[in-house]
């Protein structure tokens, strides 16, 4: 480590670009050693958990969707599940299928947005999608087309792509007749080719070596790749620890949040360890449940074979955050296929929703937002008013792992002699985007564990 730079260095990146929401990064480097890497999330607090109190049990889906414009469906779905859980109602059959279809639409558009507009420019040396559209016009057009198809699914079922209006507790305000879904089929068939071509394109990118040494946490669902429901399942980084699941109602016993002084987002730990949610975690926990086509694409893309059964075997778990874009591309392909399958099997339900009568109770809901596991918990009084709300979004859970990732990457960069501010900035921005953080989501949750070290 012959470091010609000053012994002590501080690097501040005042605002990270091409991430959703606002965040800054603060690095401390002492004598060539990174002593601190802090993501400073300065997204102002918006107090959702506070003003949800007193609201009716029908209101959280619309209200919490406003936490994030990039994954509103995820908020609506986690909220609905938590409320229905509290009220003792299960939504199944065609209504559940329609929900999954809506969620597939969000997966397609949100993941495609991240792949093409936010993440791919990093691999191809461009500042943004506009620059990319000059060097890779066909690829960008294909991406926009794919994203539009995802939007079309959400728009048809939800009314609009951002903050859909058609979702309600118990199902939908209106369930479309079969014929209305037919035009989507044609677009989705084109999308299937586009998604497959995207996987091939992304597989050709150059992926730096990196490993994220965090536990992986994702929902697991019997028989299907978990999207809109499932049981929290952990693949520990420490190979001597077996994989395990825990009931959703125990979520906050396992994932404990703590407030840190440098961020409006709370940090969380999984059973005392760092953890990561999102595409890498989903692939590790239930990759084997993807469709044969998606698995073939994954193999072709170099992701190898996933574990043969949830948590069994150790080979082929991808922990390289740079390669998350590959998993995302495979997931888009899968979501397109799922959407086609659901439409083919769709029959309009007799009623667009099931009644969800209010009652006193506590309910838990979690779904797989494109960025990872999103947990909601609500407590209601006998009149169905919210007395307490708690929301744990994926980015907050990932923050610790992202910071550790940054620390290691910068350290490796320094060791290679890449110490200039421009080089480090680039490195860090890339590292953050690998995790597709959703900063808007991170700034608002209830804190119970008091940290007194600062």
């Amino acid at each position, binding site marked *: 480590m012959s470091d010609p730079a000053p012994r002590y260095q501080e690097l501040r990146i005042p*605002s990270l*670009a*091409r*991430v*959703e*929401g*606002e965040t800054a990064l603060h690095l401390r480097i002492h004598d060539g050693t990174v002593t601190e890497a802090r993501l400073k999330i300065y997204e*102002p*607090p*918006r*107090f959702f*958990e*506070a*003003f949800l*109190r007193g609201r*009716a049990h029908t*209101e959280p889906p*619309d*209200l919490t969707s*406003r*936490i*994030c*414009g*990039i994954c*509103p469906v995820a908020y609506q779905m986690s909220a609905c599940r938590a409320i229905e859980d509290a009220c003792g109602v299960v939504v199944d059959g065609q209504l559940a299928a329609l929900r999954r279809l809506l969620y597939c639409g969000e997966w397609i558009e949100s993941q495609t947005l991240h792949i093409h*507009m936010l993440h791919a*420019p990093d691999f191809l040396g*461009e*500042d*943004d*999608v*506009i620059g990319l*559209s000059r060097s890779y016009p066909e690829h960008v057009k294909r991406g*926009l*087309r794919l994203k*539009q198809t995802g*939007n079309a699914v959400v728009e048809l079922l939800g*009314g*609009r*792509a*951002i*903050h859909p*209006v*058609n979702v*309600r507790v118990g199902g939908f*305000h*209106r369930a479309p007749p079969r014929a209305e879904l037919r035009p989507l089929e044609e677009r989705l068939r084109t999308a299937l080719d586009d998604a497959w071509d995207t996987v091939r394109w992304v597989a050709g990118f150059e992926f730096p070596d990196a490993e994220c040494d965090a536990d992986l946490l994702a929902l697991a669902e019997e028989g299907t790749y978990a999207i809109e429901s499932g049981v929290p399942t952990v693949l520990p980084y420490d190979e001597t620890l077996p994989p395990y699941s825990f009931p959703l109602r125990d979520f906050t016993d396992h994932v404990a949040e703590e*407030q840190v*002084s440098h961020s409006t987002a*709370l940090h969380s730990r999984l059973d005392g360890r760092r953890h990561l949610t999102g595409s890498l975690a989903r692939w590790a926990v239930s990759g084997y449940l993807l469709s044969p086509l998606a698995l073939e694409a994954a193999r072709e893309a170099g992701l190898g074979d996933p574990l043969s059964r949830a948590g069994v075997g150790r080979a082929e778990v991808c922990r390289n955050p740079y390669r998350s874009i590959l998993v995302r591309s495979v997931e888009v392909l899968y979501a397109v296929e799922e959407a086609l399958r659901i439409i083919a099997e769709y029959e309009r339900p007799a009623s*667009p929703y099931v009644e969800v009568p209010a009652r006193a109770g506590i309910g838990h809901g979690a779904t797989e937002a494109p960025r990872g596991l999103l947990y909601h918990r609500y407590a209601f009084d006998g009149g169905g008013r919210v007395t307490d709300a708690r929301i744990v979004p994926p980015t907050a859970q990932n923050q610790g792992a992202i910071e550790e990732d940054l620390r290691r990457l910068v350290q490796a960069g320094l060791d290679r002699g890449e110490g200039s501010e421009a080089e480090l900035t680039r490195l860090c*921005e890339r590292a953050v985007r690998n995790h597709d953080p959703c900063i*808007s989501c991170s700034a*608002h949750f*209830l*804190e119970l*564990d*008091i*940290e007194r070290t*600062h």
Partner: protein
Amino acid sequence: MSTPTPPQPPARPRLGVFKFASCDGCQLTLLDCEDELLGIAAELEIAHFLEASSEAAPGPYDLVLVEGSVSTPEHVERIRRIRADARHLVTIGACATAGGVQALRNYADVEGYLATVYARPDYIETLATSTPVSAHVPVDFELRGCPIDRGQLVEVITAFLAGRKPAIPNHSVCFACKRRGNVCVTVAHGTPCLGPVTHAGCGALCPTYGRGCYGCFGPAGTTNLPALVPLMQRDGMSEEDIGRFLHTFNVTAFTAVEEQGQPGVTDAEGPG
């Protein structure tokens, strides 16, 4: 990135997109204009748009789109700087136009809110209020919606490029409902609906999907709220229900209607 550039076409107007307290949905609407995006980029130089680009060029900007409400001490400073750098400033969405859903704090005890959400409120910098951009600096045009409508956004940008006022009608959702041929959900089904007092722009989405409008575009230009209240009561809403119904995504704007009979925000002609 400074790559050698080919001969430059005539200078295009420079666009800046800035974010305050928000969910990013309104700026995402710009990225959702897939069909128009590359066309817009050909007409406008995207000089500052952090959600989309690492290229963050300093001002002045010809057109600035502002998303989000002013809710921290730093915001107050920043919106002034941005205004000074902006030839034409347009707010996009309910947050920037009316303080957004986070303005619910304006009617609550913010210290209590902080304590509810954070164990160490002293780490958090926030104002007791969430206010629209127009409370701090002059605004040339306010585009409503939570989120804004894609078509209306394209119209605002097109109008800017053509040097005219955007053709955004000020009437209520009811007009759009009639145009769409919807059966009125209030008349036919007794579903409470804020459509009669809500600004058009969404194309009457909610009634089309069989639910009542919940007011996400804020109050229409002229509204008769007192006439609507008994109708909502007839359809089973208590006074408290109606309060929550009105006080959500555009809480400050509807509160102004209740108190003064007119929206607290107007379509500013602006200083030009």
